[in-house]
C-alpha cells in the first residue's frame, strides 16, 4: 500500500507544485515527495519547534518537580494542566479543518475518477487525498505535537521526548479516524464548495486561534489565583471525555497505554475499512430555490466582486486578520500599537486582496474579455473594493478608540494618510499582478516570493515612514526627531501620490 501511496503522491505533488506559482527549485523536481512534506509541514514545524523550545527553556529554570506537581484534589499534574489547552485547541482545529478538507478533496477531486481506474487499492487513494490536504490540518499538528513532547520531556527527559512524540502520533491516528468518520457524514449533506470554504476558514481560524492562545491562554492559567477556578478548569480541560487526556494520563503514568492505543486501533481499523469501501460519489449541497430579480442593477462588476469577496475564505481572512491582530493589542489597552499594526497588516493585505480579486477574472479567462466593458471597468473594482473595505474598518476602529478615550483626538488626522497608504498598496498589488498577466493562478498564492517581498517591503516602508515616523517623532523629545516627524512623512506621502498618479496613468492604457 505504501509504495502505491508514494507513487501517486509523487506525481500529484509534482502537479500541485507546478500549478502553484512558487518558483520551481530543482529539489521539487528531483525529490518531489520530500519537497511535498517540506512545503506543507515547514510552517507547522517552525511553530511547533518554537513553542517547544520556548516552553522547555521557560520551565527549565523552574524545578521539574513543579511541572510534575499534582494539584491537590484533582489528581492532575501542573504539567498536564499547562499543555491541555493546546491539545484542546489543537483537536478542535484538526477536526474542524481535516473533516471538511477530506470531504472536498476526497469526494470531489477531479483526479479521483482517473485514480479509480488504476490498479491501486481504494485505501491508498484515500491516504493520498488525506495527505494532499496536509496544509489544512498542519496548524493542529503544530499544537498537538509540542504539548505531548513538552510533557514527556519534563516527565522523563530526552527519552520522554520520544515517548511524547509517540503519544502524539497515536493520538494523530485517532484524530484521523475521527475525521474520516466525520467526513463521511459531512459528505452526505455538504457540497464541495461549502466543504472547501469551511476547510479554508478553519485553517485560517486555526492560525488566529494559535496567535490568540500564544498570547492569552497560558498567562491566564498561570496567573490565576482562585483555587476553585483552577480546580474547575483542570477538571474540564483534562476530562476523560476528551481523548487527548487519555494520552496525557498515559504519559504521566495514570492510565494504561494499551487502553488508549487499543481504542485508537479500533477506530483506525474502522476508518480504514470505511475508506476501502468508499463510493467517492459526488454530493450536491442542499440549496434554497431562488428567483431572478425583475430589473437590471447598476455596477454589475462591483456587485459580482463583492459577492466573490464575501464567498472567498482567503479574502475574508485577510479582511479579518488585521482586526483580530488589533484586538489582541486592544485587550492590553495598547491603542496606538493596535492602530499601527492594523495599518501595517492592512497595507500588506490590501495589495494581496486586489491581486486575489483580479485572479478571479484570470481563472475564467478569456470569458471576461467577451463582456462589453473596458479593461479599466473590470480592474477598477478590484482596487476600489479593498480600499473602501479596509479604510472603513480603520475609520471605525479609530472612531471607536477616540470614543472610549483610548486614543488622542489628534490621531484622527491619521485617517486620510491611512486611506492613502491603503489605496497605494492596493494599486501596487494590482499593478504587480497585471505586470505578468499569464502567471499561474490556480494555486492559493498568486505572487512569487519576490513579489510578496516587494509588496511587503514597499508597503511597510510607506507605513513606517508616515505613521511610524510621526509617532516616534512625538514620543522622543530629541531635537533630531523633527526630521522623522516632518520630513519623512512628507517625502513618503509625496512618493505615494506620485506612485498613484503614475500607475493610474499606466493602467489606464493597459490592455491584455
Amino acid at each position, binding site marked *: 500500500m505504501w509504495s502505491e501511496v508514494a507513487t501517486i503522491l509523487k506525481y500529484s505533488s509534482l502537479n500541485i507544485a507546478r500549478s502553484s506559482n512558487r518558483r520551481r527549485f530543482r529539489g521539487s523536481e528531483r525529490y518531489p515527495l520530500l519537497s511535498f512534506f517540506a512545503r506543507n509541514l515547514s510552517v507547522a514545524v517552525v511553530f511547533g519547534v518554537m513553542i517547544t523550545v520556548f516552553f522547555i527553556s521557560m520551565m527549565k529554570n523552574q524545578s521539574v518537580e513543579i511541572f510534575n506537581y499534582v494539584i491537590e484534589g484533582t489528581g492532575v499534574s501542573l504539567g498536564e494542566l499547562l499543555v491541555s489547552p493546546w491539545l484542546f485547541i489543537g483537536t478542535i482545529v484538526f477536526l474542524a479543518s481535516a473533516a471538511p478538507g477530506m470531504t472536498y478533496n476526497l469526494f470531489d477531486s477531479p483526479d479521483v475518477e482517473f485514480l479509480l481506474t488504476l490498479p491501486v487499492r481504494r485505501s491508498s487513494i484515500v491516504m493520498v487525498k488525506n495527505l494532499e490536504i496536509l496544509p489544512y490540518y498542519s496548524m493542529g499538528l503544530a499544537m498537538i505535537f509540542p504539548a505531548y513532547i513538552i510533557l514527556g520531556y519534563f516527565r522523563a527527559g530526552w527519552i520522554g521526548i520520544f515517548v511524547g512524540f509517540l503519544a502524539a502520533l497515536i493520538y494523530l491516528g485517532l484524530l484521523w479516524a475521527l475525521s474520516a468518520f466525520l467526513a463521511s457524514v459531512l459528505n452526505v449533506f455538504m457540497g464541495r464548495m461549502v466543504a472547501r470554504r469551511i476547510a479554508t476558514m478553519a485553517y485560517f481560524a486555526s492560525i488566529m486561534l494559535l496567535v490568540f492562545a500564544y498570547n492569552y491562554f497560558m498567562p491566564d492559567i498561570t496567573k490565576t489565583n482562585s483555587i476553585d477556578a483552577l480546580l474547575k478548569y483542570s477538571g474540564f480541560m483534562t476530562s476523560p471525555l476528551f481523548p487527548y487526556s487519555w494520552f496525557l494520563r498515559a504519559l504521566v503514568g495514570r492510565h494504561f497505554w494499551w487502553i488508549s492505543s487499543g481504542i485508537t486501533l479500533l477506530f483506525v481499523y474502522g476508518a480504514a475499512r470505511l475508506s476501502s469501501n468508499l463510493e467517492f460519489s459526488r454530493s450536491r449541497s442542499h440549496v434554497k430555490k431562488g428567483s*431572478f430579480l425583475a430589473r437590471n442593477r447598476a455596477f*454589475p462588476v462591483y456587485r459580482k466582486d463583492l459577492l466573490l469577496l464575501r464567498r472567498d475564505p482567503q479574502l475574508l481572512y485577510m479582511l479579518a486578520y488585521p482586526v483580530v491582530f488589533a484586538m489582541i493589542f486592544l485587550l492590553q489597552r495598547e491603542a496606538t500599537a493596535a492602530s499601527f499594526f492594523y495599518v501595517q497588516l492592512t497595507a500588506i493585505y490590501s495589495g494581496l486582496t486586489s491581486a486575489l480579486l483580479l485572479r478571479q477574472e484570470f481563472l475564467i479567462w478569456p470569458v471576461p474579455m467577451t463582456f462589453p466593458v473596458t479593461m479599466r471597468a473590470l480592474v477598477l473594482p478590484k482596487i476600489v473594493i479593498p480600499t473602501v473595505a479596509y479604510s472603513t474598518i480603520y475609520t471605525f476602529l479609530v472612531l471607536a478608540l477616540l470614543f472610549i478615550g483610548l486614543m488622542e483626538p489628534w490621531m484622527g488626522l491619521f485617517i486620510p494618510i491611512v486611506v492613502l497608504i491603503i489605496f497605494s498598496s492596493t494599486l501596487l498589488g494590482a499593478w504587480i499582478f497585471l505586470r505578468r498577466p499569464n502567471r499561474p493562478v490556480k494555486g492559493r498564492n498568486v505572487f512569487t516570493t519576490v513579489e510578496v517581498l516587494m509588496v511587503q517591503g514597499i508597503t511597510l516602508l510607506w507605513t513606517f515612514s508616515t505613521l511610524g515616523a510621526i509617532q516616534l517623532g512625538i514620543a522622543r523629545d530629541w531635537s533630531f526627531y523633527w526630521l522623522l516627524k516632518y520630513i519623512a512623512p512628507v517625502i513618503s506621502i509625496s512618493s505615494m501620490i506620485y506612485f498613484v498618479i503614475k500607475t493610474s496613468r499606466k493602467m489606464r492604457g493597459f490592455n491584455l
Partner: protein
Amino acid sequence: MIEAKGLVKKFGDFMAVRGIDLKVLPGEIYGFLGPNGAGKTTTIRMLTGTLKPSSGEVRILGMRMDESEIEIKRSIGVVPDEPKIYENLKGREFLEFIMDIFKCPRSETLSRLSELCEAFGVDYLDNFAGEYSHGMKQKLMVISVLMRKPRVIFLDEPTVGLDARSAKILKLLLRKYADEGSTIFMTTHVLEVAEKMCDRIGIINEGLLIAEGTLDELRQLSKEGHKNLEDLFLELTGQGKVDEIIQAL
C-alpha cells in the same frame, strides 16, 4: 455579418494565424474546421475581440473591432472552447450578472431563459458553479448566450460535453436563429455536425484558410473524388494516409 481581412497572429516567432480573409453573411451558419493546433481558437478569439490581431482587420455588423470593441461585444454572443464560470457564484447569480452587464431587457430575457432552462434541463441554478460538471457548465454557458439572442453568435466546440438531447436542441435552435437572420460562426471536430448544419465551411490548416465554400464546392476541390466531409477534410489537410497507419498498427 462577420468580416476578416488579412488576419495575422504571431506569438513571438510562432505565427499561429497567417493571413485569413473570410466573410460570413446574416442568416448563415459557418463551420470553421481544422486539425488540432491549426489556429481555429486563435482566429475565433481575434474575431470576438478577446485577442488582438498582430495585423489585419475584423468587422462585425459593419463595425471595426479596433474602433467599436464594446459595442460589438454587446451585440455578439460567445461560447468559448472551455466553459469557465466564477466558481463562487451560483448559476442564477452568473446569469443575473450577464443580464446586468449586457444590459438585457429583463422581462423578455427572463421568459426566454425559462424556456431555455426547460429545454436544456437546467434545474441547478441555485448550486455553486464550482460544483458543476463540464456538461452542466457548458449548458449554462450556452444558455447565457442564447437567452440574449444576439445577432452574431460564435461557438467554439459547442456540443462538447452536451448530452444527445441538449446537442440536438442546440443544433435546431442555431438553425432557427440563423433562419431568423442571425450570423453563426462555429468550430467543431464533429464533421457530421458540420456536414448537416453548416451552410458554408472553412478549413484552416497551419494558420491558413486552405478551403472555403459550400459542401458541394468543397467536393470539387477533391483530387481523389471524395464525397463525404470526413474524407474530404483529411485529404485537404494532408492527413489522409489513415489506412497505412492502421495497417502498421
